[in-house]
């Protein structure tokens, strides 16, 4: 399973390195979303700082949808989806590999978006640990659930519009918990260890969807 996961992740990341779709299209899109929110909130920095945590995670969710769509678009042309099924790879390995590749891409996007939040909104980080743990857990959860729903939508013709419709409601806990944890980390929410329950929720979310993905990706791939 791990060997297959490494193989699939390496393949997807190599394709991204060649095509640079996430770097040249998804990252600018996410930064534009941040900039548009900044315009919408007006020239006063106070509301922007207050909203920075939530806007960061909204931009991450939008970017996640695009990254997942891109990941499964690779398997939608020239019979590569059938090729992947025929390859004999362990479905759990395919799931973990695709999720890992999406997670790497999301991590790069989150670094850029975090810089954007600091530059556009003037936010200051008070707890780097909370920021990092929230990003790590959120990324793992988003990549896992995104890979599952990406596979689910992959078999239908209207997958481009179906995926956001299916995925965004499911990742609401990540948006909520990530925002709360980041509010603590950016000093715009309650202090102390108020981020802890939200971080735990994100870790549980990631663990549950990773476990579910490992178990059901095979049947899902066959049924989709």
């Amino acid at each position, binding site marked *: 399973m791990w060997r297959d996961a490494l*193989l699939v992740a390496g*393949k997807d990341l*190599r*394709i991204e390195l060649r095509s640079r779709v996430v770097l040249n299209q998804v990252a600018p899109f996410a930064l534009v979303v941040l900039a548009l929110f900044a315009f919408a909130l007006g020239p006063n920095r106070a509301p922007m700082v207050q909203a920075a945590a939530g806007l960061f995670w909204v931009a991450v969710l939008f970017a996640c949808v695009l990254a997942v769509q891109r990941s499964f678009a690779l398997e939608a042309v*020239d019979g590569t989806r*059938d090729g992947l099924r025929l390859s004999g790879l362990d479905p759990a390995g395919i799931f973990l590999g695709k999720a890992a590749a999406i997670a790497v891409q999301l991590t790069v996007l989150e670094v850029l978006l975090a810089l954007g939040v600091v530059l556009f909104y003037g936010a200051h980080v008070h707890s780097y640990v909370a920021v990092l743990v929230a990003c790590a857990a959120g990324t793992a959860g988003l990549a896992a659930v995104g890979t599952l729903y990406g596979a689910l939508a992959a078999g239908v013709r209207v997958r481009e519009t179906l995926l956001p419709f299916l995925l965004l409601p499911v990742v609401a806990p990540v948006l909520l918990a990530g925002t709360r944890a980041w509010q603590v980390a950016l000093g715009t929410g309650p202090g102390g260890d108020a981020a802890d329950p939200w971080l735990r929720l994100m870790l549980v979310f990631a663990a549950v969807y990773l476990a579910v993905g490992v178990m059901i990706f095979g049947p899902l791939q*066959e049924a989709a």
Partner: protein
Amino acid sequence: MGEPMASAVSLRAAVALTGRFPVLAGIDLAVAPGEILVLEGPNGAGKTSVLRACAGLLPITSGEAVVLGHDLRRRPSAARRHVGMLGHAAALYDELNVLENLRFAVRAAGAGVEGIDGALERLGLVGRLRRTSVGRLSAGQRRRVALAVLLARRPALWLLDEPHAALDAAARSLLGEIILEAVAGGATVLLASHEPEAALPLAHRAVTLAGGRVVDERSLGRLVTGPRPVGPSAAAAAAAAPLAVAGDVHVAGDVHVAGDVAVAGDVHVTGDVHVA
């Protein structure tokens, strides 16, 4: 070692649906290990569906389907690692180069990468072509890469859907050699084709499909001998087997025969005939 399989592929009253439409409507088909079987029939007859069902890509909803000893009704994916399919699509990643595509496919199948260089060389994918993105290749070159994947993987069951499409004359001849070598190495080949002049000379048997069933079956005279050495070319290999043809023969080029040929119908040859 277990007992040798009676059939590499055994379909009995197998039914497969696409939506609610039966693309396989109770088909019975048995393919012996080491056999080359050509599937013929008009568009929509079920040729591709048979290949996809044997690959475990098309679920069998009733009847029996056993491929390489694996019951596909219980586990459709069981035989996949031992099955290679060349379909209408090449199943290659445009952004990866030829070598990277081969490495991924071969490693995914759990095969050794030592056969990759030989496969690429055999298919003429050498020099700069090895490092060229597949997206920049012509249709024929993509077909060659897909064939190189099969050659490097060395599956036990080859499922070839219109394998001659997009190939030039040299590549078609090479394809024939590769198929005969694969069978000599113990593989079984199912070949769906609309080009009998290219496919039938390779085959032991041909079946005609219509409406998702076998409606006609004929032996092409060559004996299924299992693994055996083949000569340096497809022509030599084909000539090494006894040839008996029940119908007419139409040949567009020269004919070189080292043994006997028995033909029950007419023979039309536009080139020379050399009989040793």
